[in-house]
């Protein structure tokens, strides 16, 4: 049940991000929409790794190995989410760097001003 709520939230975030990217003309808002989409994807990845009544896959006094096999959530999507977050941050940094350069060239952040590569 809880993972279905989280999954829905993640997919809604992806939709909101896509909507933001398609409707807004300001480059910074497009980047924010892209980040929202990325965050939604991370939430979806984590949600599909959930096991019913699961807990974090950390073995200690409260969770023995035999118990963990039946109770811990899938660790693979969590490990992938760490990777995805780092890559998402990297992509955002490069996008922002280009946004700064584009602003310097045209003194505006509206995407309508950049028509050179438009077909």
């Amino acid at each position, binding site marked *: 049940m809880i993972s279905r709520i989280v999954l*829905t939230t993640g997919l809604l975030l992806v939709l909101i991000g896509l909507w933001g990217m398609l409707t807004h003309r300001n480059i910074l808002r497009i980047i924010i929409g892209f980040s929202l989409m990325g965050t939604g994807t991370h939430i979806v990845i984590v949600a599909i790794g959930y096991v019913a009544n699961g807990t974090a896959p950390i*073995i200690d006094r409260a969770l023995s190995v035999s118990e963990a096999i039946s109770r811990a959530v899938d660790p*693979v999507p969590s490990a992938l989410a760490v*990777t995805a977050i780092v890559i998402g941050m*990297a992509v955002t940094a*490069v996008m922002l760097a*280009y946004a700064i350069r584009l602003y310097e060239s045209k003194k505006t952040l509206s995407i309508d001003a950049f028509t050179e590569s438009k077909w």
Partner: protein
Amino acid sequence: MIRRHSIIVAIVSLGLVFASLVIGYTEQQAARPLAESYIRLVPQELGAPNVITGILLTYRAFDTLGEIAVLFMVAASVGLVLGREGPPRGVPSEDRPGEARPSSEIVQTGTQILVPLISIFAAYIIMNGHLTAGGGFQGGAVIASGILLVLLAYPQYQPNLEFLGITESVAGALFVLAGIAGLIVADGFLDNRILPLGQFGAFFSAGAIPVLSALLGIKVGCELSVILERFRP
């Protein structure tokens, strides 16, 4: 108008696809075979209580190495894109009129109190990655948040980019060397059993995972700090 309609159509159709995903989704009742073997093998073979760190720093450490390479490329490309040919930076603000005014005393005092705490917290996250939630990437990001706070409070502050670059390169080289040592001493590239596994759950345990975690944290922290410094006006 057509544009707006096509956007609505795209969003609604994607929403329908997502809705069918949500309706068809069923929660797993038990771990998949791969997850089960990871949960069993990480504490047994690697001696790490945190299964995710065991996966990130041993079973899929090659992916982590690739990710470090991606971060390095991003730092390089941000430097390339934002590198400027104008006068060198770091000139005192008197020479550059119209410069941002200094930050307020509240921000400066807050920074002085918070930055040591943030550094300690980052070291804690990095060094306990094999025992509890945490690890090199997360701790590195916390270090970079401390640097960001310093850059906001003291706009004149110049991080030593050369030092950051050298530290980062040394950490990366040591990470690869630890991997090669795994080829020679243990079972494969980036195997953590080049060091004794120690007692399960102790601070010095899980073989090379704490060392790799520390190297990763240092490297990520330096790289993110360099990226942040590049974004300064």
